[in-house]
């Protein structure tokens, strides 16, 4: 509920706002909460129910239900800063950039700063056609994207993201955007506070950080399947710097899992059905 309240508090009537809430199979009173909120919001609120578990799947259904040209994404444990939409309207510049993210700061100082945190001091552009975007560059907890980016590049990869082992659906989409020729931007003035609850030093924080290695591995693997063979050199350099065996181990495991998954989806191991007839061409049989 606080997330929704922050959206309402940040609402700027000069911005035409539509809020899409994608409910990923909730079994509690989420719908009732959203309906109540919609009644008092002052702007358009759409509720979409996505039964199949998976953050990317839900987000994609949200995209399909949305109608605006500019799409902003955040998470249900996030709070928009009061000036979010007015700052967004002021700084967005489609001629200069078409996707990106803003600052993602801890709501609670006790939370681990290595978890889903991004401080941006100055506006920075990500050049078009950047082949490999470093993981961590773009977070879906405060991400924006013009609709034409999604039209050209596709939606979030539903094999990645919350509910899968690979939290990298955001950087992966951004990577596709960049390779398609779109420019990205890191904007300091659009701020979201993240109340993720992963306390510094906690087991949850450590697990979350380890999951980033899994995301990185899957992201690299997907790039490899798209013939980005320079990933090996990129990987070599980053390992030689970190020398972190645990991280590399997780990256390799996730990469191999993702490769196996991708191979399976390309050529599913279904048994052939007996007696399948020949394809009709529509031409009459001779004789």
């Amino acid at each position, binding site marked *: 509920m606080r997330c929704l309240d922050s959206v309402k508090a940040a609402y700027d009537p000069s911005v035409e706002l539509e809020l899409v809430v994608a409910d990923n199979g909730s079994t509690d009173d989420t719908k009732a909460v959203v309906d109540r909120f919609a009644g008092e919001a002052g702007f358009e609120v759409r509720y979409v129910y996505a039964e199949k578990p998976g953050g990317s799947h839900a987000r994609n259904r949200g995209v399909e239900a949305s109608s605006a040209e500019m799409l902003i994404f955040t998470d249900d444990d996030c709070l928009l800063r009061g000036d979010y939409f007015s700052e967004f309207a002021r700084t967005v510049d489609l001629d200069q950039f078409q996707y990106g993210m803003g600052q993602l700061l801890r709501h609670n100082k006790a939370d681990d700063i290595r978890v889903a945190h991004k401080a941006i001091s100055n506006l920075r552009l990500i050049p078009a056609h950047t082949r490999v975007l470093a993981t961590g560059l773009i977070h879906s907890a405060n991400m924006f994207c013009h609709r034409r980016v999604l039209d050209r590049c596709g939606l979030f990869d539903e094999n990645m993201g919350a509910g899968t082992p690979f939290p990298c659906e955001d950087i992966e989409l951004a990577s596709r955007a960049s390779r398609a020729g779109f420019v990205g931007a890191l904007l300091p003035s659009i701020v979201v506070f993240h109340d993720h609850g992963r306390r510094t030093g906690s087991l949850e924080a450590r697990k979350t950080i380890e999951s980033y290695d899994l995301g990185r591995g899957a992201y690299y693997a997907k790039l*490899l*399947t798209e013939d980005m*063979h320079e990933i*090996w*050199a990129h*990987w*070599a350099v980053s*390992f*030689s710097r970190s020398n*972190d*065996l*645990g991280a*590399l*181990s*997780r*990256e*390799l*495991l*996730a*990469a*191999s*899992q993702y*490769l*196996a998954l*991708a*191979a*399976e989806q390309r050529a599913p191991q279904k048994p052939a059905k007996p007696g399948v007839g020949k394809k009709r061409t529509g031409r009459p049989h001779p004789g």
Partner: protein
Amino acid sequence: MKLSLIICTRNRASSLTPCLQSIAKAHRRLNVDLVDVELIAVDNASSDATQAVIEAFAQRQSFPVRYVQAPVPGLSRARNIGVKASSGEWLAFTDDDCIVRPHYFLRLQARLDVRRFQYGMASIVRYNELDDPRIAQCQIEKESLIAKGTRILPAGTIQGANMFMHRSVFDQCGLFDEALGAGTPFPCEDIDLACRASRSGFTGALLPDPIVYHDHGRRTGSAEAQQTLESYDAGRGAYYAKLLINGTPEIWDLWRRSFEYFKDKKQFSRELIAAGEYLAQASLSPGPNRAN
């Protein structure tokens, strides 16, 4: 020359005899003036009649046959116990499902030359035509050497079913890595040791004989054959991962080429999984054999 043949066995009492008999037969062929042979039979925690079979065999032989126990399961552990129990200057290895040709000791005696090479393997041929030829089979047409200092030996270059090492290799490079080998997920303890030998400056040899027949029983098309082949991918992954963390960044390049080459991404995926699993273990403990 003093040669120790080390065989490790676990719960194969009923089929161990052909292996042992082939060794006895090969021994009858050799010239005892030229070579002294001892057989070290390592019993890797068998619960069947293995001990009785070996001891009965030992009693009938005219050459030393030592029965040694390796109480903790694991091929590398067993082999290492065998190495430590042996006294030969050359150590030969084969498996308990192998049958050595009658010329085995004669050819070893004729070919082994520590001045030219200090480790290597000779041909392995499947014993049964129905067995999968992709499993532990390696026919070497003519002798070739592996230059000392070669940084990466391709997986499969040296196979434990017909392998030999001069004792100086163990003295300098250590024993078989007990985190690898049958009984672990990573069947690459042989190539791992050979690669360490190479990087320490030893020269390797691939010899056409002596020939060992491998009666591994993995019939072509069987589930066991498929499992064994998949385990080779795992061995390869762990072997390359271990090299990677021991100062061999060229492995990234090797993976790049393998990935482009492998049409079957599932096979490559198995290799990477094993690499990841091996590294996960390594990240928890440095491990005994991180030499070179």
